[in-house]
C-alpha cells in the first residue's frame, strides 16, 4: 500500500513543473512493450499471466487480510462491536493515540521542513553524514529504539535521573511514547520534502529575493506552495505511521491500562486476553483510518490532476507579437 501511495504522490509534483506538464500533455510516450503485448499470442499470454499473478498477490496479501479484519470485527454483531470500541479503556487508547499522533506530526513537520531546507539549499561539512543519519530510524528496529530511549531516559538512564529529580517522568509515560513515535517517524517528512526541493532547485526563491522579499515571505509565498503536496504526503505517511507504531512504543509505554496503552498496544492486549472480536473491532478502527486516508488522498490527487489538465487545454496560442522597433 505504501508503494501505491508513493506513485500517487509523484504524479502531481511532476506535473506542477511547467515544462514537464507540457511534455506530458503533448507527447505521451508509447509503451515500450506495446507491440509485443498486443499483437502476438505469446504477448497476450504473457499479459494475462502477469495480470493474474499481480491480482493473486494483491488478493492474498492485501485484500484478504482487509476483509478478514472487518469480518472478524463484526462476527458477533454490531452490539459487541460498539461495546468494544466505546468502553473507557478503548476511548482512552483512542485519545492517547490521537494526541501522540498530533504531537508527532507537528514535531516532524517543523523538523522536516527545516532539515529539508537546510540539506537542499546549503552545502556544509558533515552534510552527507547528516543525510544518512536522518534515515537511521528507518534502518534500526523500533524495539531497539525503545530500548535506547530507556537507556537514556529510564530511571537509571543518563538523562532520566536528572529529569526524575525535576519531577518529569519520560519512560512509561506520555512523553516517552511521543519520543519513541517521533523518533521512528522522523525521516518521513524530511525525505519527501527534501527530494522535491532538490529537484526543483532554488531559482524561484532567488527570484523572490531579488524582488525584495524577506525570508518569511519567500518561504510562505514561494517555497511552501511549491512543496505543499510533498509536505502533505509526508504528513499523511507520518500520521499513518504514528497511529500504527507498535514496537518502540511497546517498549517504553509500560502498558498501564487506560493511561499508556495506544491503539495498537490495545489491540495486542485484547488479543492476548482472547477477546478476539474486541481486538478485531479496534483493529478495524485503525484499518479504517488508513483506508480513509488513502481515499482522501486519491480524490485530492484526482482533482489536482484534472485542474492541471484543464489548464493545459488552452495552451500555446501564441499571440501575434509584433516587433517593437521604435
Amino acid at each position, binding site marked *: 500500500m505504501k508503494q501505491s501511495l508513493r506513485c500517487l504522490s509523484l504524479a502531481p509534483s511532476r506535473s506542477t513543473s511547467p515544462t514537464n*506538464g507540457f511534455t506530458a500533455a503533448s507527447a505521451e510516450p508509447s509503451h515500450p512493450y506495446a507491440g509485443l503485448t498486443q499483437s502476438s499470442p505469446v504477448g497476450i499470454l504473457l499479459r494475462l499471466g502477469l495480470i493474474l499473478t499481480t491480482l493473486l498477490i494483491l488478493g492474498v496479501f492485501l485484500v484478504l487480510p482487509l476483509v478478514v479484519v472487518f469480518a472478524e470485527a463484526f462476527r458477533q454483531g454490531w452490539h459487541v462491536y460498539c461495546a468494544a470500541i466505546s468502553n473507557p479503556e478503548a476511548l482512552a487508547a483512542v485519545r492517547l493515540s490521537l494526541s501522540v499522533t498530533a504531537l508527532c506530526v507537528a514535531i516532524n513537520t517543523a523538523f522536516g521542513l527545516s532539515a529539508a531546507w537546510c540539506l537542499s539549499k546549503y552545502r556544509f561539512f558533515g552534510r552527507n553524514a547528516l543525510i544518512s543519519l536522518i534515515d537511521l530510524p528507518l534502518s534500526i528496529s523500533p524495539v531497539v529504539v525503545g530500548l535506547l530511549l530507556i537507556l537514556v531516559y529510564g530511571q537509571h538512564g543518563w538523562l532520566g535521573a536528572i529529569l526524575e529529580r525535576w519531577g518529569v517522568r519520560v519512560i512509561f509515560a506520555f512523553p516517552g511514547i511521543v519520543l519513541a513515535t517521533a523518533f521512528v517517524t522522523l525521516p518521513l517528512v524530511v525525505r519527501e520534502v527534501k527530494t522535491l526541493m532538490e529537484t526543483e532547485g532554488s531559482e524561484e526563491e*532567488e527570484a*523572490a529575493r*531579488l524582488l525584495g522579499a524577506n525570508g518569511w515571505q519567500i518561504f510562505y509565498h514561494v517555497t511552501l506552495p511549491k512543496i505543499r503536496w510533498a509536505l502533505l504526503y509526508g504528513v499523511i505517511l507520518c500520521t499513518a505511521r504514528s497511529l500504527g507504531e507498535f514496537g518502540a512504543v511497546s517498549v517504553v509505554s509500560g502498558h498501564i491500562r487506560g493511561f499508556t496503552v495506544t491503539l495498537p498496544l490495545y489491540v495486542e492486549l485484547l488479543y492476548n486476553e482472547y477477546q478476539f472480536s474486541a481486538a478485531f473491532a479496534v483493529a478495524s478502527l485503525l484499518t479504517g483510518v488508513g483506508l480513509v486516508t488513502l481515499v482522501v488522498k486519491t480524490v485530492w490527487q484526482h482533482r489536482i490532476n484534472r485542474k492541471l489538465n484543464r489548464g*493545459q487545454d488552452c495552451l500555446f496560442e501564441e*499571440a501575434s507579437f509584433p516587433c*517593437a522597433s*521604435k
Partner: protein
Amino acid sequence: MRIEVIEISKTFGKFRALDRVNLTIHAGELVALLGPSGSGKTTLLRIIAGLEAPDPGSGRLLFDGKDVTYRPASQRGVGFVFQHYALFRHMTVYENIAFGLRVQRRRLRLSPADIDARVRELLRLVQLEPFAERYPHQLSGGQRQRVALARALAIRPQVLLLDEPFGALDAKVRRQLRTWLRGLHDEIGLTSVFVTHDQDEALELADRVVVLNAGRIEQVGTPEEVYHQPQSAFVTEFIGTVNRFRGIRRGSRVEFGTSEALSAGEEVVVFVRPHEFALSTIPHKHAFPAVVQRIHTAGGLVKLWLMAQSGELFLAEIDPHHLSQLALAEGDTVYVSARQLRCFTEDGQQYPPAEPLRAAVGQ
C-alpha cells in the same frame, strides 16, 4: 546607474570562476558578457545581482560609486531575468508581476490601486494583456520570457540583468525578442547587462561586448572593435569564423600555409577570416598553393574548403561571380593569399601590436 567591478575574484572549491576581474559599465549601456561555458560570465552576473558573494576581501562592487559588495540581493533593486525564467508557477501572470510590489515593506508599498495600475502598464508593455489570468505553464516560451521581464521591471530597477535571456527559445522568437529588448532598453533607459554564449546575439544587440575566458576578461569593446580588432588569439577564434594556421615570423614577414621547413624564426599563430582570402589561378610571390576539396554554393557567398600543402584544411568565402571567373572545380589547385590577417606569438602577444596586417604575406 554605473556599475564598477573592481578586482573581484570568485572560487568554487578549487575552481577559480573569476580571477581579479575589473569592469566598468556606464549608465544606460547595454552590455553583453560573452564567453564559452565555464568562462565565469554567469558568476559575474550573479555577483552583480548579489546572488553570489565574491571571495572575501577580493574586491569591490560599486553602484554609482557606492560600495554594494555586501548589500543583500533583496536590497539592491536589481531586475534579474533567469535563463529558465523562474516564474512562480502557482501564481498567475498578474500575480507574478505584482509579487515584487506586494512584498515591499508596508511603508514603501504602493496602494492596491497603484499596484494594479503598474501591473496593467507592464502587461501592456510586454504585450501580454489578454494573458493576465494564465498560469506560467499555459504560456509559450516567448511569453514566459516576457512575463519574467515584466516581473523584473515591476520594482523599477535601475539595473536589468539577464542570464542567457534567449537561450531557451527557438530561432525565430529569439530574433523578434532581441529586437524588442533593444527597443525596450532604449525606451526605459536602464543599464542592462546580459550573459550569452552566442556571439551573433552579443554583436547584434550590445553597445559593448565583454569577452570572458577562464575567469578573466579577454577584451572589452564595441562589437566592431571586438570583431575587427581582436586583442588576443582567444577573441579572434571565439568571435566570428576564422581559420587558424601555424606560421613563422621573420622580421616583418609572416609565412604560413607552406610545407617547406618552417625554420629560423619565431613560431606564431596566424588567423585569417574566410572572406579575407584572395584567390588566383596564377602563382605569385605572396600566395601559397592549395587544393580545392569541396565547393559549397548554396548561400550568398560561395564556400570553398581548401587544403594547404602544410595539411591544414581551411575555409574561404568568395562571391559567386568571382568563382565563375576562376572556373574552379574540386581537385584544382588555387593560389591563396591573405588580404588581411592577425598574428599572435605563442605567449599571446599580437604582431604587429594592435594593427591587423594589411599586406598580403604568404609564402
